[in-house]
């Protein structure tokens, strides 16, 4: 893994996270690996299962690397969709201090 960087990286998610976006999102996340990450999901209007998969795989990998992976802001559609598809991201929300 790359050297741990103290600087916290952040990633703003695109409004539409559909099939076409999954690969791009995966690449973005791969590029950010190794350091703490804050995700801004406040602009998200629509999210598909594939992108949810990528995000969850990211959360898993970050956890393995013992690096924080948090959602700083989430939009309502994002939360609703996550609930709908039964993906619990409560523990990844910024309010839960897990630094």
């Amino acid at each position, binding site marked *: 893994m790359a050297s741990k960087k103290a600087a916290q990286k952040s990633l703003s998610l695109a409004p539409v996270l559909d099939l076409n976006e999954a690969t791009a999102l995966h690449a973005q996340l791969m590029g950010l690996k190794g350091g703490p990450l804050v995700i801004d999901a406040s602009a998200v209007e629509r999210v598909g299962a594939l992108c949810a998969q990528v995000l969850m*795989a990211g959360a898993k990998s970050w956890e393995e690397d013992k690096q924080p992976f948090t959602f700083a802001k989430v939009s309502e559609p994002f939360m609703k969709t996550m609930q709908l*598809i039964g993906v619990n991201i409560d523990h990844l929300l910024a309010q839960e201090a897990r630094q």
Partner: protein
Amino acid sequence: MDMNEIKEIFFQECEEQLAELESGLLKLNDGDRDPETVNAVFRAVHSIKGGAGAFGLDDLVSFAHVFETTLDCVRSNKLEPTQDVLKVMLKSADVLADLTNAARDGGSVDEARSRTLIRELEALAHGETHAAEPAAPKPVAAASKPAEPAPVVAKPDVNDEGFQPIPFSFGDFDDEPAAQYVPTCQIVFRPNRELYAKGNEAVLLLRDLSRLGEMSVYCDMDRLPPLDKMNPEEAYFSWKVSVTTDKGEDGVRSVFEFAEWDCELDVRTIEEEIVGDAADDDEPPMQAVPFDLSLLEDGPAAGGEEEPVASESDAAAAIAAADTASKVAQVASRAAENAKAAAAAATAAQANQASAAGQTIRVDLDRVDRLINLVGELVINQAMLSQSVVENDNNGVSSINMGLEELQQLTREIQDSVMAIRAQPVKPVFQRMARTVREIADITGKSVRLITEGENTEVDKTVIDKLAEPLTHMIRNAVDHGLEMPEKREALGKNPEGTVRLTAKHRSGRIVIELADDGAGINREKVRQKAIDNDLIAADANLSDEEIDNLIFHAGFSTADKVSDLSGRGVGMDVVKRSIQALGGRISISSKPGQGSVFTMSLPLTLAVLDGMVVTVAGQTLVVPLTAIVETLQPEASAIHSFGASQRLISIRNSFCPLVDVGRILNFRSTQANPMDGVALLVESEGGGQRALMVDAIQGQRQVVIKSLEANYTHVPGIAAATILGDGRVALILDVDAVVAASRGQPLRQDISLAATG
């Protein structure tokens, strides 16, 4: 786009679905047990039913429904697709086709037949399965019945996954579970990669599910790999969902209508009583789904899907519309949901033809023809242009020549592509023959197997359309007259099941269709006697076997002792011959007593472009199809041998080959040419033999556009068609086979000759 146009599209698609259905059933009949085949068959019937429902074609719907129910038993492995079962199914496919035709063109169908089949299908569905089949999706028929709570029959042993749904009840937890009559469905939904690839979205499916009733969902992420090992377009998530809904399993399944081929789906109904037994589940609790889903809606698209599954019939209509009309009318709610047109197209394509890749458009044939004609003119024009440039420019300005060469390649490519539009595989015609064989076998009590080969051989659409009728005649003849009764076959040591083989292939620039049976062959004695009786030939005429065989192509000839419903009126074979000739084709027969007969039809690939060798014969310019030519050679005096009075042979690499003087046969000249002055073209003729055609000189090799002689002038024996050369002159295209046949001493006439080779 008015309703009639949509309906027309529906019928066109029905035709495709029926073809799909039939080929699938035949595959099953041959022992194919691939679930995808069963699915394809099911899908075909289902689509027809759905569309028919939307157009209120009740007969079609009710028959398709029964058929579908039985197919579903096969699909869910409750019913083994044995030969007997498939026989009923193939007949049902025929009736379905009849009903479709009746719905389109009016007319009536044999109601007794369809009623019998309905009973047989129902017997299969019920006899072999349990009294009820909760899994059978029956949206349309259910619409007419009172909405009964579908899952009355429950399966108590659902719990093979150690998972129990927790009933959700917002508000009144004190409800007695048993008091509720609303069934709970447990759904295991595992999408495949294709589901996403086709533009479907698990999230939307789950949202639709959540609208059915109270839903709880658990997302199984166990298969999710770490980020660096994952493929972002692979499907890793799977879901376990429980929905409490009065729509029952049918409602749940209808949500997955468009996705069910691309996911593993298991829907079960749980009886209220057993819910809660497994409270000590170690599964994580499921998340409740909020009811307010409005934020997930796509604003503009919401209009089409106000009530997701308002009633069974609405759902059926929506499904039907999506199935049949989604390409043209934005009716389908799901298609509208997908923002991207590509995604919508993918969904529609998936629904219509999940197995066949590739998209199609429907184009009016006239437009294609116009295009083909124009391209033909373009090719001729290009040839003229390049010729005049070559003639007028002796300096050889290379840039012009290079440009011309490129133009030539381009026109060539355009022409090839345009021709490809017109060409279609003979498969649909062959499939229709399968039905003919079945019906005749049924009526005659014979057991027949139809083997088709080369179904994908492509030929011009006109030829295909006109091929069906003569082929049907010939198949009837082959089964009715050709094949013996099973008992007789057995006594002769043959397989009691007769074989009829239908083959299509390309040969020397034509399409050759062969129909072979392994029956008794032509009874030459009987044919001869009959011909004498009917004054077709003189009693003492001395005819070769081949000539006798060809007598059956005469009008008013039938060897059948009594006229049957099927064939034997004596109108069959001469009609066949005439329709084949009208297509510019030939038909010939070869028969071996006791072993069967082979009918060979050779048809031109009309409208096609021809690669030809331009040759000179007695001052005339002729084009010899390149496909027929094996090699060209300059004869030497030592290689020419005389044979008989006027025949000559040429020896080529230690084998002898008859030398055919083209100019003599076409009556271009009255004396035989000197072989040493000309060039010999070694050609392969239809019979398989080689002949050396003698011409005066070779001008070159060229691509020519076929202009029909029949359409513009009249049929000329020995000439297949005409073309226009670069200098504007008309050149005739040689009919190699006819010339070869003529060289064997058969007259080059087609009107009154006994010979089959016109």
